[in-house]
């Protein structure tokens, strides 16, 4: 079996590359019974994807706890825009501290079987819960950068080219 060149397409969206440079998005505790607002952080489009391709998605998000005990955030990847199907989610928690509590959350995910001439992926964040009560409307976490989101289209292993 011959080795081949696997990485066939790449795109990224990096609205912020340093802590404190992202137009801050404040995550607040919703009123009782209401859903928290999900915010778009970054988005890009990949093209000419074949059925056997692996689509590797990577994100890095910098954020800080603002108020309240241990706010839990959920980071999501959606196919399409902010109302597209959720294909990945993971959670991270801010820790109470007297000093500013800064966090970096990073993760990888792979999609397969989604052949398409044009696919959009969107990185979002949503507040999940907090350990102890705070008034609705309290800002519990702020996304303040960096925000990096990229996608690689990786071909099936072992076909075609000889090099």
């Amino acid at each position, binding site marked *: *079996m011959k*080795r*081949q*060149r*696997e*990485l066939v397409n790449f795109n990224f969206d990096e609205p912020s590359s340093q802590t404190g440079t992202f137009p801050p998005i404040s995550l607040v505790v919703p009123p009782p019974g209401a859903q928290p607002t999900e915010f778009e952080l970054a988005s890009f489009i990949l093209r000419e994807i074949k059925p056997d391709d*692996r689509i*590797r998605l990577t994100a890095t998000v910098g954020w800080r706890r603002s108020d309240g*005990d*241990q706010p*839990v955030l*959920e*980071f999501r990847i959606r196919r399409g825009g902010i109302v597209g199907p*959720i*294909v*990945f*989610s*993971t*959670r*991270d*928690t801010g*820790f*109470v501290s007297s000093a500013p509590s800064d966090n970096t*959350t*990073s*993760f*990888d*995910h*792979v999609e397969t079987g989604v052949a398409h001439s044009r696919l959009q992926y969107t990185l979002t964040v949503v507040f*999940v819960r907090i*350990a*102890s009560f705070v008034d609705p409307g309290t800002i519990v976490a702020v996304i303040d950068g960096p925000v990096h989101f990229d996608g690689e289209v*990786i071909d099936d*292993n*072992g076909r075609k080219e000889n*090099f």
Partner: protein
Amino acid sequence: MSRERLLVYYDFDQPDSFSGSITPIPLTLPAAGALPTEIPLATVNLNLVRPHDRVRLAATVGWRVVAVSGPFSNEAELEFRIRRGGTTGVLVSSARDSGFPIEDFREITTKFLYTEGGISHSVQYTLSVVLVNAPGAGPGTTPAQIIGPIHFEGSVIDDNST
């Protein structure tokens, strides 16, 4: 020197894509003096590897600390491991992360990377996790759980010039 395309092989194992979508995998504190159980989470198989290649492994795991006897009761420290050659193979990489729950939960995402060279032909890597420390928790309790996502991947990257 001409430029070339470097990624020559890729494999991944992704038992879970969402936070909280699997039955939590419990990490239980062993009896005093006993070794904690190492739990395999995912495996990748890489083929067509040459000695000058760089093998890059990446893992993402979602987990949570469980307060076993009330708020502030315990911490939990996990060690994530990569072994070459099966679940009892050579330990080539480890990374620790820890959490401290105020209430009954603290959800955490851990991601880490490892690269090695000098590998030939076919190779298998296993991602595993072990509970290494849980101050405040007693033997037999479960101060941490793997809740997803679980992602493990390997990339074979060719020598920079041929």
